[in-house]
C-alpha cells in the first residue's frame, strides 16, 4: 500500500551510557494495520515509540511519519499513549476531556464521553482520586478518541483487569479504519495476538523479525506468543 505510515532508516539512539537503545533500526510500516511491537524488557520498544512521537531525537538515522520528518505536522496525525499518564493529579476527568478538545483538532468528544460512560469512569472525579487502572482507562480513551493516522500505544493493557482488556482491544478494533495504523507495544502477547495483522520482534535495539501474524501461523503452525517464547528463551 503506497506510502508507509512509519519509516525508519538506520535509526540509532544512544542515551550516552554505552549500549545503543536502538541500533541501526530500519523498517517501513504500512497504513491500515494493527501491528504488535514485541520484545523483552529493555529491547528498545519505548525508545522507538518516543522517537516516533517526537519526544526524543535520534542520535543518527532518519524517521518519517506519513512521509514527513518528525515535527508539528506529524504530531498532528500521531496519537500517543505513554507508559504513564501525564495528567495533573488535581485535574478532573472532565477537564482532561476539555484539554484534549483544545489541543487536538481531530479529537472526537462524543466518542470519548461514550467510552468513559461504557467503562463507568466518573468524570467529575479528580485524577488523583482514581485507581491506577482507571487512570489508564481515561488516558487510553482520550488517545483513542482522536481520529489519528498513527496510534502509538505503549503498554495499553498492562494495568487493567481482563474484562477491561477485552473492552480496550474491542475499542482498538472498532475505532480502527483502513487509513490508520495502530502500533501496540506489549508484553501481554497472548491477549493481543488475535487482533494483530503484523508484528515485529525487537531485541537489543535491532529488528529480529517482522512478519504477518497469520503467515507465521500458516507456515510454522505457531502462535505469536509461542514463537516469542522460543525466540527469546532465557
Amino acid at each position, binding site marked *: 500500500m503506497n506510502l508507509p505510515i512509519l519509516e525508519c532508516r538506520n535509526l540509532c539512539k544512544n542515551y550516552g551510557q554505552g549500549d545503543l537503545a536502538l541500533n541501526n533500526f530500519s523498517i517501513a510500516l504500512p497504513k*491500515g*494495520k*494493527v501491528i504488535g511491537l514485541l520484545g523483552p524488557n529493555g529491547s528498545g520498544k519505548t525508545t522507538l515509540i518516543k522517537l516516533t512521537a517526537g519526544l526524543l531525537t535520534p542520535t543518527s538515522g532518519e524517521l518519517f511519519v506519513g512521509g514527513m520528518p518528525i515535527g508539528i505536522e506529524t504530531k498532528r496525525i500521531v496519537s500517543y499513549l505513554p507508559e504513564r499518564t501525564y495528567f495533573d493529579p488535581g485535574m478532573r476527568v472532565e477537564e482532561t476531556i476539555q484539554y484534549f478538545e483544545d489541543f487536538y483538532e481531530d479529537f472526537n468528544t462524543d466518542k470519548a464521553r461514550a467510552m468513559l460512560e461504557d467503562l463507568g469512569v466518573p468524570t467529575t472525579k479528580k485524577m488523583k482520586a482514581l485507581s491506577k487502572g482507571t487512570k489508564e482507562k481515561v488516558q487510553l480513551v482520550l488517545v483513542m478518541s482522536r481520529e489519528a493516522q498513527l496510534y502509538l500505544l505503549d503498554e495499553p493493557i498492562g494495568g487493567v483487569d481482563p474484562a477491561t482488556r*477485552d473492552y480496550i*482491544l*474491542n475499542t482498538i*478494533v*472498532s475505532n*480502527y479504519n483502513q487509513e490508520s495504523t495502530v502500533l501496540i507495544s506489549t508484553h501481554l502477547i*497472548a491477549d493481543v*495476538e*488475535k*487482533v*494483530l*495483522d503484523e508484528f515485529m520482534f525487537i531485541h537489543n535495539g535491532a529488528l529480529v523479525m517482522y512478519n504477518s*501474524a*497469520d503467515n507465521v*501461523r*500458516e507456515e510454522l*503452525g*505457531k*502462535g*505469536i*506468543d*509461542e514463537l516469542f517464547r522460543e525466540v527469546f528463551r532465557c
Partner: protein
Amino acid sequence: MAWAFDQTIPIYLQAAHRIRSDIVCGRYSKNEKLPSVREFALTASINPNTIQRAFGILEEEGLVVTQGTAGRFVTADNEVITRARDTIAQQLLQVFAGKMTELGYSAEEAAGLVKTCYNKASDINILKKEAPSDESADS
C-alpha cells in the same frame, strides 16, 4: 461473546470456518444479508482485516456474494451450501475415523456405535447443545 480461537492456526481460516458453519447450519439463511465486516470484527473481537480476508475465502467458495454497496449476502444457490455441508461432514468423519481406528475399532464397530448413539434421545440433545461451541475450537 468473543469467538474462541486456536492461536496456532491462521485466524482468518478459523473465522471463515466459523461463518461457513453458521451458514451451513442455517444460522444465516439463503439470500440473507450478512453483518458488516466491522460488526463481525466486534463480535469476534478480532481485526476487521482478518474478517475481510475470511470473506475473501467464502466469496471464492461461492458461499458469500457481494452485491455492490448493498453488502454481503449468503448465496442463493442451494447446491453451493449443500456442497459446503458435505465438505464439513467429510472433515469431521475423517477425524472421527482416525480416532476410532486409533482406539482399535473397526469400521463396522464404529458405525454400530454411531447408530446406538443416535438412538439415545438424550445423547442427541447433548450433541445439539455442544455443537456450536465445538466448531470454533476445532476447525
